[in-house]
């Protein structure tokens, strides 16, 4: 079997095992108030981190480009309580226009 197939199968098994294990933890361990608070915060910190990394970094380097302008417009749209779809489109348009000109 080629190395590439090993990678395909190996990473698929690893990913499934990780995800499934998260669902196997009995609920009683997740109802403690402290665990509950931490658990609620986890997706929030991960997604905040993701927004930061996707906006101002590229291949491990800090890069300020059209993406930051796009996100700035998205923040304004969110503050003005714009619909979700509009938030995404306004960010995309801003970034695309700056990229092309």
């Amino acid at each position, binding site marked *: 079997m080629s*190395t*590439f197939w*090993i*990678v*395909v*199968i*190996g*990473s698929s098994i*690893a*990913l*499934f095992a*990780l*995800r*499934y*294990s*998260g*669902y196997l*933890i009995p609920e009683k361990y*997740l109802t403690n*108030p402290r665990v509950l*608070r*931490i*658990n*609620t*915060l*986890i*997706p*929030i*910190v*991960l*997604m*905040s*981190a*993701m927004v*930061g*990394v*996707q*906006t*101002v*970094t590229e*291949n*491990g*380097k*800090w890069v300020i480009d*059209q993406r930051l302008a*796009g*996100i700035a417009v*998205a923040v304004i749209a969110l503050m003005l309580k714009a619909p*979700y*779809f509009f*938030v*995404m489109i*306004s*960010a*995309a*348009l*801003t*970034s*695309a226009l700056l990229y*092309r000109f």
Partner: protein
Amino acid sequence: MSRVNRATATQSFSVSFTVGLYGTAFGAASIAAGFSVLQTCFLSLLTFSGASQFAVAGVMGAGGTAISAIATASLLGTRNMLYALRMAPILRVTGVKKVIAAHITIDESTGVAISQEKLGTQAMKEGFWLTGFGVYTFWNIFTLLGALGAQAMGNPSAWGLDAAVPAAFLGLLWPNLTNNYERAIAVSALVMAIVLSPVLSAGLPIISTVVLAVVFGWKART
């Protein structure tokens, strides 16, 4: 599942389609790294985790070993495990449904679910399933197109996709940031990940912010 909340459905679709488009970039990157079209499609069908898949392509493209590629994918996959912990008490799935739920536990499905919190558990569930299946569908279609060399779309930046994706996550995050305490946590995580980016290898700056969730979650909310 009764009538799906329209706002939830729109949000699920927007996220699924936008993120799915990035599948073309993965398809192309995977082929460039040396995977065949079939292997590329299997990665999207079975691994189904954007961050891990791009990392695999990166490691293999740079001539890395199978072990290092799988290890990197696993490291990034711990994020999905953490999402599963959050989703398990909401979805309360068993049997085959648990297997399917696990497979579609990704950034997007969890993100849409938590952003429906104010609408109740039912909306959170709907958001999770719709987005999970939606991303799965589009991600795999566009992976195939990218792997087949579809250049129709060209550079994702030219279409603003590079900003649309973080904007999509920001929009999902926004309803969860209702007070200054939560905003402070979000900003801390964002800054921490950016600062660590040049120091740690891909994916680690994001997963390391879990420390903040533990620190802030440890003491009671004020």
